[in-house]
């Protein structure tokens, strides 16, 4: 009895330092940012005059100011970026993992190649892909456009991230950015799926084959369902990265002409540290936090329940 109590105390003491640090440096600062977002702090000097939800209303004011227009574009861009980036990572990652799972020669080399981009900073990726997708002009083609021209695929040449056109609220300039982001993080989903595939017992596959399933059937009915938890974890991990994406886009294209590749993170950084609009910057941060929360909290609840069940 006393022994158990003592152990509990000890455990509490052991985690206390991290509890204190997290309380101050994570939750404390989130609370402080929330407070700033409800203030009139505009300029270098802090000003905590209560503003209610004014800063939020300004960002969501329909059609009105440039800031509201920019923020609306940002939210759409984040939506499409996240959607297509996740889709690309999951589909390509799964495909590569299945190919790697065929016990091919030199699997280790391929695994390293696919995983390697993850080791590079987003800043480096951004700069390199900016060069790759720089369109050039008719008389001096650059990057991918020069490549397409040299193999006779001129029909596929376009302005890439300089293109300001859109399909509905979807700016086509996001496509090269999504390609760059997916290039960097597909290796992560590949590794996750490969681990998942390896965890599927060979007996299960054999049993399915004995029952008359062909190879496609084995994947559809046996293996893919078993990979579901992996897909979910991958979506959560990549989802919160893409909702907060900043460094890749900042170095690759910036806001883009007409805000075609702008995202809330860039807006927040520029309005705060360039425009000195601290309250507006804090407001954008809190909205970003809320969007990430919308994704992460259901996952936490789900995984918590699973743990309880187990």
């Amino acid at each position: 009895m006393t022994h158990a109590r003592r152990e509990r105390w000890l455990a509490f003491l052991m985690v206390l330092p991290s509890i204190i640090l997290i309380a101050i440096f994570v939750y404390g600062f989130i609370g402080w940012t929330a407070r700033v977002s409800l203030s009139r702090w505009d300029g270098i000097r802090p000003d905590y005059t209560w503003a209610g939800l004014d800063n939020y209303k300004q960002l969501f004011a329909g059609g009105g100011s440039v800031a509201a227009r920019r923020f609306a574009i940002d939210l759409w861009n984040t939506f499409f970026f996240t959607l297509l980036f996740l889709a690309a990572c999951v589909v390509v990652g799964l495909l590569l993992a299945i190919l790697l799972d065929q016990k091919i020669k030199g699997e280790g080399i391929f695994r390293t190649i696919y995983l390697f981009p993850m080791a590079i900073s987003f800043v480096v990726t951004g700069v390199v892909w900016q060069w790759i997708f720089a369109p050039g002009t008719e008389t001096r083609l650059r990057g991918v456009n020069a490549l397409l021209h040299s193999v006779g695929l001129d029909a596929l040449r376009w302005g890439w991230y300089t293109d300001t056109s859109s399909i509905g609220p979807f700016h086509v300039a996001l496509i090269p950015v999504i390609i760059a982001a997916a290039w960097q993080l597909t290796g992560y989903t590949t590794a996750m799926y490969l681990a998942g595939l390896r965890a599927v017992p060979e007996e299960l596959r054999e049993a399915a084959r004995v029952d008359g399933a062909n190879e496609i059937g084995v994947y559809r009915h046996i293996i893919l369902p078993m990979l579901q938890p992996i897909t979910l974890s991958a979506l959560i991990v990549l989802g919160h990265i893409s909702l907060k994406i900043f460094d890749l886009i900042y170095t690759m294209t910036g806001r883009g002409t007409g805000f075609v590749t702008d995202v809330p993170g860039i807006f927040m950084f520029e309005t705060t540290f360039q425009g000195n609009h601290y309250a507006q910057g804090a407001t954008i941060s809190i909205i970003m936090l809320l969007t990430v929360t919308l994704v992460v909290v259901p996952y936490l609840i789900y995984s918590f329940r699973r743990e309880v069940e187990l």
Partner: protein
Amino acid sequence: MYRNMRWLVIASLVVLALVVGACGTPAPPPPEPTTPLPPPEDTPMPEAGTLEIFSWWTAGGEAEGLAAMYEVFEAQYPGVEIINATVAGGAGMEAKAVLATRMLADDPPDSFQVHAGHELIDTWVVAGVMEPVTSVFEDNDWLDVYPPGVIEVLSQDGEIWSVPVNIHRSNVLWYNTQVFDDNGLTPPTTLDEFFTVADALQAAGVTPLAVGDSGVWVDIHVFESVLLASMGPDAYRGLWDSTTDWNGPEVTDALEAFAQMMEYANEDHSALSWDQAAQLVVDGDAAMTIMGDWSEGYFKSVGLTPEVEFGYVPSPGTGGSFIMLSDSFGLPEGAPNRDNAIAWLTVCGSQEGQDAFNPIKGSIPARTDGDRSLYDVYLQSAMDDFASNEIVPSLAHGAAASEGWVTAFGDAMTLFVADLDVGAAQEAMAQACVDAGMCQ
């Protein structure tokens, strides 16, 4: 087993004590209530101590120019140790985030680099963290050697707030002389001539205007020249103190001219930076570019000679006017080594300091008595214009308006470059003036 446990408990308690102790350490006491120091009777002669200079000059001619100025300072004040506090990052946004943290925590450097004009005034002076440097100007009789247009940019509420070390010109059109000769053209001096020349160049298969606006400041930079061309220096100055109406027809004209100009620009302008655009002119792919006179440093760095391979004129329609921007140093309230800081500012503003810095940086002195023999042919012509022209402040580079205003203006430009909607852009620019608290 138990013994191990005990050690663990002790160890964690020690860690805890450290953490709590660190959190609980009282912040350094706030500086004594500042009794304003009396203005120095004569130039102070600091003998010792340190001097911390904060800047974002970490590369190229800028860092070397700063080092040259340090040498001048060290020769005069050998006992003072200079701490060169730099934060890398092109336009200084990263540096500013660091500076803001330090200033608000009452830990200012002794002096810091800042764009002269409203970037300094509306960010730092209105926050009450700067000390005026008017007395430094008076003690050194600088009011006679700095042009009134410069003093006006530096001043607010009857005080001067920083010491400029250099002047750059924003409204310059750079051109490839070979391309102009081949097509029998002369560089345009008005907007109308610009469009005539541009048509001829386009017909000859040359991109008339090179633009590299991957950073929106380049759009603002080109547009301020067009604004000046369409309304002249007096009305242009009035844009920044609300005496010129943002809804007026001159602004409309300027927006239309800018929209027309962009049709002569390279299609991939938003993928390029200003120096990549300059490279198009070097290569002869494009004929002209409108950019500040740091372009000259670029042209020379790739081996071109001014007035031989490349030429320069005031950007179309702005002859007789000089859009200035300037790097300057200010005096933060509560600078730890105030005497040394004032000595530094005295060096910054002196002829010797400026002639050490500017030939290396590729800019001209902010005073009119620089030693011409130290400067190249372009800089000499800029010095002549600076002494005789109407001097007006640059918007893109912090001289004309507050940072918040420039940011809002940039957002309007970002949309305008994409949709070329003159009405919406003018409305957004008028609103930016209202939001900045300048217009009604």
